């Protein structure tokens, strides 16, 4: 049985089509990344799965039920727009969420204390939520989503606003939940995060699915188009490389030069020609990044190079913004 199944799901808001004919199957025990830029339709899809919104057309099945409403106690959900009762104490808030999720245990208070301890929030059970920092609250919210040990965990932009230490902690928590047997679906617009955790990736753009593949299959399927190299002589003239056939452009980054090939470029041929131009200290084929794959998939339907640049700039901006949080 699949954990989530969407068949031809469409959702519109007025004239805006948020999700268009979306088909999705997430098997039980999978760990899926739902990726796309801001406004791609990720949150709407997740809300549809959660039965917070309802589709205009199409069929949704969650944990074998026709609606998530019937399986809410088996689902853990961390929404993108998440909050807490500011005046409520942390322990009481977690206890309330556990009660709503059907957890009836005489040791609930004790286990909440243990959970808080594990995420580095020991001793905060008696504090009011408003007394906690944003990062600490994020951890409390994640505990609230997983306190009932759900069969399906849906996380909408879970890493948003987290510092690197908390990001690692959350990643470990997600992997732990997955290890316990839970199916995980999480959305992000920060592609490297998906690359680190997911087994399977679903990409959406403007409400439509553009990719639905295993990460390993994506890596083997999408030919790398970037060659990274450092010349042996730092002062070597590399302008000749930019004029080589099949080379789109050369960027200078912190880790050296990046040679971007045109769609039809042959990496092996390009590497051979680079060696002929200048002796490299390092020359390697860059692993295909999800971001590049996404740009390639989306820009195939985009007319101009200008549009591609804008799309990449948009994603880069999103990443930069995320990193600075």
């Amino acid at each position: 049985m699949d954990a989530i199944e969407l068949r031809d799901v469409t959702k519109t808001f007025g004239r805006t089509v948020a999700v268009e004919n979306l088909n999705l199957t997430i098997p039980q025990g999978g760990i899926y990344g739902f990726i796309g830029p801001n406004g791609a339709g990720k949150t709407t899809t997740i809300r549809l799965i959660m039965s917070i919104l309802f589709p205009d057309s199409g069929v949704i099945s969650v944990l074998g039920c026709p609606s998530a409403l019937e399986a809410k106690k088996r689902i853990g959900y961390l929404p993108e727009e998440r909050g807490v009762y500011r005046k409520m104490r942390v322990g009481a808030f977690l206890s309330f969420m556990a009660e709503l999720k059907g957890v009836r245990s005489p040791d609930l208070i004790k286990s909440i204390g243990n959970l808080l301890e594990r995420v580095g929030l020991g001793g905060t059970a008696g504090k009011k939520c408003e007394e906690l920092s944003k990062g600490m609250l994020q951890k409390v919210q994640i505990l609230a989503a997983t306190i009932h040990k759900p069969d399906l965990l849906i996380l909408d932009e879970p890493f948003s606003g987290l510092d690197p230490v908390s990001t690692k902690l959350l990643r470990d928590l997600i992997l732990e939940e997955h290890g316990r047997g839970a199916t995980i679906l999480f959305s992000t617009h920060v592609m490297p995060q998906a690359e680190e955790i997911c087994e399977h990736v679903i990409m959406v753009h403007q409400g439509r699915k553009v990719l639905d593949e295993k990460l390993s299959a994506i890596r083997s399927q999408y030919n790398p188009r970037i060659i990274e190299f450092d010349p042996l002589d730092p002062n070597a003239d590399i302008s000749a490389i930019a004029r080589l056939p099949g080379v789109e452009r050369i960027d200078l980054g912190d880790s050296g030069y990046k040679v971007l090939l045109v769609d039809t470029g042959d990496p092996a041929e390009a590497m051979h020609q680079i060696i002929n131009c200048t002796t490299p200290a390092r020359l390697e084929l860059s692993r295909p990044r999800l971001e590049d794959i996404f740009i390639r998939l989306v820009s195939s339907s985009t007319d101009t190079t200008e549009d591609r640049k804008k799309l990449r700039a948009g994603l880069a901006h999103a990443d930069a913004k995320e990193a600075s949080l």
Partner: protein
Amino acid sequence: MNNILAIAKREFLATVATRAFIIGLLILPAIIAIFALAAPRLFSQKNYQIKGEILVIDSTGRITPKLQKTFDRETIAARREEEARKALSNVPPQVRQLTGNSINKNIVSELGPIPEFHIAEMPANSDLEQAKKWLNVQPKDMPHLALLVIHKDAIEPASLENPVYELYVPPNFDDRTDNEIQRGLREAIVNARIQARSIDKSTIFAIMNFPSAPSVTVTQNEQRQTVKGFNIMLPAVFGLLLFMGTMGGGGQLLNSMVEEKSSRVVEVLLSAVSPMELMAGKLLGQLGISLVGMGLYIVLGISLLSGFALLGLLNFSLIFYLIIFFLITYLVMGSLMMSIGAAVNDAKEAQGLMMPLMIVFMIPWILWLPISRNPGSALSVTMSFLPPVNTFAMLLRMTSNTPPPLWQVWLSITIGIGSAYCAIWFAAKVFRIGLLMFGKAPNFATLIRWVRSS
């Protein structure tokens, strides 16, 4: 059901356990208690001494001696005692008992020190304009209080419509001094007229004066002295209880909804419960809070009435109907308030949508006196069947001196239940869509569009 109870419990505890709720609950009885204690001191005339000179131009030449007598300190003291006796005869016997059933010196002394008037006379042919200037000179030890010009026909009036005297006073003249002078002057003129007609004053007094018997209210089980004002105050008190209970509850629901939406906790909740469970839980929790408040006020009210042995005046079935009407009004008001809370982005936007609702619910208050004084009028009957204010209007009619027939009461209750159903239906539709809507401030047209689309 467990989820509804869990949400209701949280809502109840989150409010009841706060200092603000306890203060809010006790503030009304506290204000009444403070007012009851402070009012006698605030309005006491103990420290107000009337003292000064009255200049009289008496064209009859016969009223001034009477004025000397009526403004005499002993006469004023006797007049005050008589007034206190009359006032006391109107209060319930239990209150009268507190005073020891006698007009003692304390009651009279509450009216302030006995005024000290000095009468100075000017010849009848004096220049009035010159005399008026006397008022603009105010010696500190004996202020010039008033210039009194008594007309020639004051004793034998040519017409009953024309005034027989003129009273001139300085600026910033105190109304208590004015009352005291007018009262003494009237008595002096009446005395002069009685004397002029050679009538025996004691005969007239005997004709005019007799103690007025208090009316007796006859109830099914007993009869007791009518308490003046009770029939007017009872609808007001019941209306206030209903208004405070529902407005307080509705306001709390709106605030809590706005807070949950603006703090984005609502989507976290929706991951665990359905919008309907959330709405029902919140309505139930707040209902508990309102019932605690209303129960406290009802118990306080009954204790007060019982303390003054006035409990027999209260028809206890009214409390039953108060609770029924409260439940109906609460569901209407609470649902509508909650739908507003779910639709708006912040408290400021809520004000705009709340205002028309508040105006509608204020209508019975504007019509309180017309309805309770004339409960059978077309206006009163119409209002008591017109949702959402029918519950207020019907309660005002029921607590008036002419209660409506029972079938009208139950028709109003049925209409109320129907309107509560419609309000919940409307709120549920708005609730489902509004909860996750952020951005542009909604108006009533937006809400109706949401209801149609959901």
